[in-house]
């Protein structure tokens, strides 16, 4: 008898879980009330990176003369064409997931999923009709949505969510971005490239507060270079729509006026309407579905993965959790390990991080040594005209094992995987520094930063000289 497994949600958690479960021989049904791919593919990772790729091309054209390339006429952009390209990229990926479902025999049922018991998922279609799916195993993968400031709902016109912003209906003359987290900072550089005057307001004392402090201070400087105004340590006291846009009053007394506001203060978890209690489950304080490291909820046979677990809001973490849940649901025994999760932030320049941040290590009372190396000391960075950036390696002061690698600079998100591998394999900073890195590449920066942990970077002047 085939195991019947039903997955609620088809984002990067749900669709990956579906394919893995099918590979393991289960009868798989996915319930999805929007498009396959979830936030990542439809509203997040992919459309934003596609838009950013357009602004990368724009910036390159603007700086063509630096490379001895002459362009004649005005360098400008065509917003409808940028949107068209974004839609094409997204729809290609959607088709890809649908084709994979077909190939692996995964049933996709349109409708909003809810649990009506421990072993029945109900899909409610747009027209109100329902379908109940009897399931041996259930995986909850309903994700998250943009969170609004209490009392200040998104209106899609003046006060935008990241879902509204990614539609890019227009480029406002000015925009106030509330929240200097990943989404806020990515959109800040994006809008700036397209010509908006950007002001970013952050409640915490620094931008990208979840990153290493050295990365935050570098990106704060890059925001300044890009003429993006950053106000930290300030809350929005009030915000109201005006004929010209919005006016916000900050907790420090400052008033900010802008044509639009983008609120990117975090994400709310999608457990409302899921009827968790009917299956014997209860949401946590933030609306999350609590799970253990095998992705099991407290109800046997019911698993949860991705943003809705409230653990780490990253598409690739959701995918790994989906694989772990699918394996365990079908007789396997796999656990999640979050020690070396790499992550990319697509600011200008990019950020890639893996493992512990320096402040985290210190908060845990760990004794560490760090090494940093600037991009501007790399020949390749000069050749590319991308000299802003640093690589930072954090190692245990006793064992020398690499605990964290943090990069801000061109291609950082791609480069950081070497760091994640070093952390996963328990490599020491000496081993990382002794590994031959190809010249000329940006990856040499990782070797040099690893060497710098012991004061041995070749391309740095002697301390104090």
């Amino acid at each position, binding site marked *: 008898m085939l195991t019947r497994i039903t997955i609620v949600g088809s984002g990067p958690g749900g669709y990956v879980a579906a394919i893995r479960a099918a590979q393991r021989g289960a009868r798989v049904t996915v319930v999805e009330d929007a498009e396959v791919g979830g936030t990542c593919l439809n509203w997040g990772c992919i459309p934003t990176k596609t838009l950013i790729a357009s602004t990368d091309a724009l910036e390159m054209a603007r700086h063509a003369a630096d490379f001895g390339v002459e362009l004649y006429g005005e360098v400008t952009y065509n917003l409808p064409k940028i949107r068209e390209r974004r839609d094409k990229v997204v729809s290609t990926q959607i088709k890809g997931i649908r084709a994979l479902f077909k190939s692996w025999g995964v049933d996709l049922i349109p409708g909003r999923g809810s649990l009506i018991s421990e072993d029945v998922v109900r899909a409610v279609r747009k027209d109100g009709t329902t379908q109940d799916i009897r399931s041996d195993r259930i995986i909850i993968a309903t994700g998250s949505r943009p969170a609004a400031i209490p009392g200040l709902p998104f209106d899609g016109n003046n006060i935008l969510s990241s879902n509204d912003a990614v539609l890019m209906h227009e480029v406002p003359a000015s925009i106030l971005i509330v929240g200097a987290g990943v989404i806020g900072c990515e959109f800040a550089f994006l809008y700036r490239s397209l010509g908006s005057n950007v002001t970013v307001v952050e409640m915490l004392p620094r931008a990208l507060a979840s990153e290493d402090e050295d990365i935050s201070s570098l990106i704060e*400087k890059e925001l300044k*270079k890009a003429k993006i105004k950053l106000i930290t340590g300030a809350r929005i006291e009030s915000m109201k729509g005006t004929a010209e846009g919005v006016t916000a009053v900050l907790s420090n007394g400052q008033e900010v006026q802008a044509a639009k506001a983008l609120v990117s203060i975090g994400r709310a978890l999608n457990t409302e309407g899921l009827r968790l209690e009917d299956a014997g489950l209860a949401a946590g304080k933030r609306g999350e579905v609590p799970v253990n490291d095998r992705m099991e909820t407290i109800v046997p046979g019911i698993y949860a993965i991705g943003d809705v677990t409230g653990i780490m809001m990253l598409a690739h973490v959701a995918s790994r959790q989906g694989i772990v849940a699918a394996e365990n649901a079908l007789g396997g025994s796999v656990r999640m390990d979050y020690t070396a999760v790499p992550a990319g932030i697509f600011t200008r320049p990019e950020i890639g991080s893996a493992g512990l941040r320096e402040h985290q290590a210190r908060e845990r009372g760990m004794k560490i040594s760090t090494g940093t190396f*600037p991009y*501007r*000391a790399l020949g390749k960075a000069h050749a590319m005209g991308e*000299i802003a950036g640093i690589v930072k390696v954090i190692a245990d002061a006793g064992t020398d094992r690499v605990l964290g690698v943090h990069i801000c600079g061109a291609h950082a998100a791609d480069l950081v995987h070497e760091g994640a591998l070093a952390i996963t394999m328990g490599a020491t900073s000496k081993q990382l520094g002794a590994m031959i890195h190809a010249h000329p590449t940006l990856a040499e920066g990782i070797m040099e930063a690893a060497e710098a942990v012991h004061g041995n970077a070749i391309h740095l002047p002697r301390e104090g000289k």
Partner: protein
Amino acid sequence: MNPDDIKYHREHAWVRVEGKNATIGITDMAQQQLGDIVYVDLPERDTETDADSELCEIESTKATSPVISPVSGRVLEVNEDLGDSPEIINEDPYGNGWIVVITMSDPSEVNDLMTRDEYEKFLKEEEER
């Protein structure tokens, strides 16, 4: 040629005093060492600064380097032209490449700074060290 109407700090900054105000920049030696300057992280007006502490940061194609304030005081004016054209410092370090004007809180600190001749002697010693 280093001018003789200004005072020099051992961290390669200079000061031109007019009453209680001091115009600050980096020396020709400093700009040569840095190479092509690509960005000056200008301080905000009204920032308080102490003598011998970091006033702001300069980025060149070679390095990111702090500008050390030779005197204490409050930033009265910043050279906004450096925002779009930081290379002015390379071209004219003692003139249009000035960085800030500070209202000094303790003008006697100027007495601790070097004259041109003392600075040039200091550079020679540094080189031989």
